[in-house]
């Protein structure tokens, strides 16, 4: 038989540009990638198994520790599922505070994703700018919730802390700084000839392939799929949320989409702050008791749809739980469609990072 594959090129599990352990196995012909495969299982802890049989108070913290980058959305979706099981009403002020914290978390996650991409294509200046701006966003998160990463801010029937007036002022000033800085960085990104060479027409995935591979989140929206789970969320419906869609399907589109979503998040937070002005002094914790039932609920994580299926008994203990995270579909799409036909081995890591894989989310 004629040999078609030159080299089988494994990348990982410990690699300079990966934040987490994963292995990409590529079959290459010269520099061209013929096929790729992602091998996982390095950080499987079995969180869903240890969640079963525990009261929701414990599961809440475990849910948050599924992923450190998008911890707020894990907390939020689990609590919203529990609220829908037991018909707990959320005060309107708490609903807007939840959106503020969730959007801040999305901002820091998108900044981190774009930092990783810029670092991978060796544009270190922009990468350092982005990670420094992320610190500003994380500071605001810390000011509101009391922690940088694992906040545990959202609880059934409300949120833990109220937003003080002086904190709202600091948040507004930080948002102005973010908007100014991000516009500058977007300009750098758009005009950089190096970035265009490394990103445009690299890692192409068409809309049909996105639908076939079920990819979600920014990866799907950069290829023209007009869908966002925030459209189904009652608070976002009040805020007239509209998803952003780009059609160029390549690495460049995915990064630009995240930049555009940053502006969108800033606008959402500003709108929430405006509405909170009129709700001063209202309650932020309604209270309620977690009861028996079963429900499935989906929220929009920074990487796509995040689904929780929870079944509780009448004491508020979790009897069954299953979590579906978006990264597994995105990584599948990346391995089977984006990497196939990549012109150079240097593009492998760039393409993989552009889909923003979160391995801890995947394996749990």
């Amino acid at each position, binding site marked *: 038989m004629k040999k078609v594959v030159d080299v089988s090129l494994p990348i990982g599990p410990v690699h300079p540009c990966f934040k987490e352990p994963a292995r990409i196995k590529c079959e290459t012909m010269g520099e061209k990638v013929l096929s790729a495969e992602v091998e996982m299982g390095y950080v499987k802890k079995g*969180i869903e198994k240890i969640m079963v049989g525990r009261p929701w108070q414990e599961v809440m913290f475990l849910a948050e520790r599924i992923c450190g980058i998008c911890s707020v959305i894990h907390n939020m979706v689990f609590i919203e599922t529990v609220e829908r099981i037991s018909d707990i009403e959320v005060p309107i002020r708490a609903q807007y505070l939840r959106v503020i914290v969730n959007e801040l978390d999305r901002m820091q996650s998108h900044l981190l994703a774009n930092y990783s991409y810029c670092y991978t294509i060796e544009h270190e200046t922009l990468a350092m700018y982005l990670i420094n701006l992320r610190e500003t966003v994380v500071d605001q998160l810390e000011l509101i919730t009391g922690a940088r990463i694992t906040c545990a801010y959202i609880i059934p029937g409300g949120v833990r802390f109220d937003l003080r007036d002086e904190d709202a002022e600091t948040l507004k000033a930080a948002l102005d700084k973010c908007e100014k800085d991000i516009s500058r960085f977007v300009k750098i990104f758009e005009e950089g000839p190096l970035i265009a060479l490394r990103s445009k027409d690299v890692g192409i995935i068409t809309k049909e392939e996105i639908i076939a591979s079920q990819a979600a989140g920014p990866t799907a929206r950069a290829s023209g799929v007009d869908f966002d789970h925030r459209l189904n969320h009652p608070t976002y419906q009040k805020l007239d949320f509209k998803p952003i869609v780009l059609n160029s399907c390549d690495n460049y589109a995915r990064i630009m989409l995240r930049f555009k979503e940053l502006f969108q998040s800033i606008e959402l937070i500003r709108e929430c702050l405006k509405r909170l002005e009129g709700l001063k002094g209202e309650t932020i914790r309604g209270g309620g008791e977690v009861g028996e039932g079963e429900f499935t609920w989906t929220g929009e994580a920074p990487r796509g749809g995040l689904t929780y299926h929870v079944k509780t008994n009448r004491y508020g203990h979790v009897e069954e739980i299953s979590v579906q995270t978006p990264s597994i579909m995105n990584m599948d799409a990346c391995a089977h469609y984006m990497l196939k036909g990549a012109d150079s081995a240097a593009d492998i890591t760039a393409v993989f990072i552009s889909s923003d894989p979160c391995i801890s989310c995947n394996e749990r």
Partner: protein
Amino acid sequence: MSIIQSIKNKVRQRSIHVCYVNVGSCNGCDIEILACLAPRYDIEQYGIYVHNNPREADILLITGAFTEQWEDKLKHLWDLIPEPKAAITIGNCPVSGCAYNRRGARIDPPVSKHIPVAANIPGCPPRPTEIIGTILELAPVVFKDYEEKKAKEAAETERKTKGAKK
């Protein structure tokens, strides 16, 4: 102390290469290491370089609760790092398993069971300043007079083996 040794001591305080490995954490600690790179904390002004390549590392940063898959791989990674070397664990997970340490979880903490650990930074997750502070405090202690200590140890073992022969 010889002159060469004192120069080496001086240099090693300000040139520390770091490799980090995630053995089953939630990413929280990993992104706090990444945050150290930010110009606000600026880890490189202290001469600490995050390379993530074990073959040129001096210090191995470990995050996570040690999952089963890393059983032999972490030992292999540790053997790749040239002497003198030290391991620092970050977060509660490598110390106790933190929230994951329940019956049925596929983890095996503490990490110090598997490789020698020089320091632990508890916290869920610890702040970037704590990570930088620990590296800066630990590195000079571990790397001080490394060659002289090694020569002394070699002489000691030689004396013992000779004594045994006689």
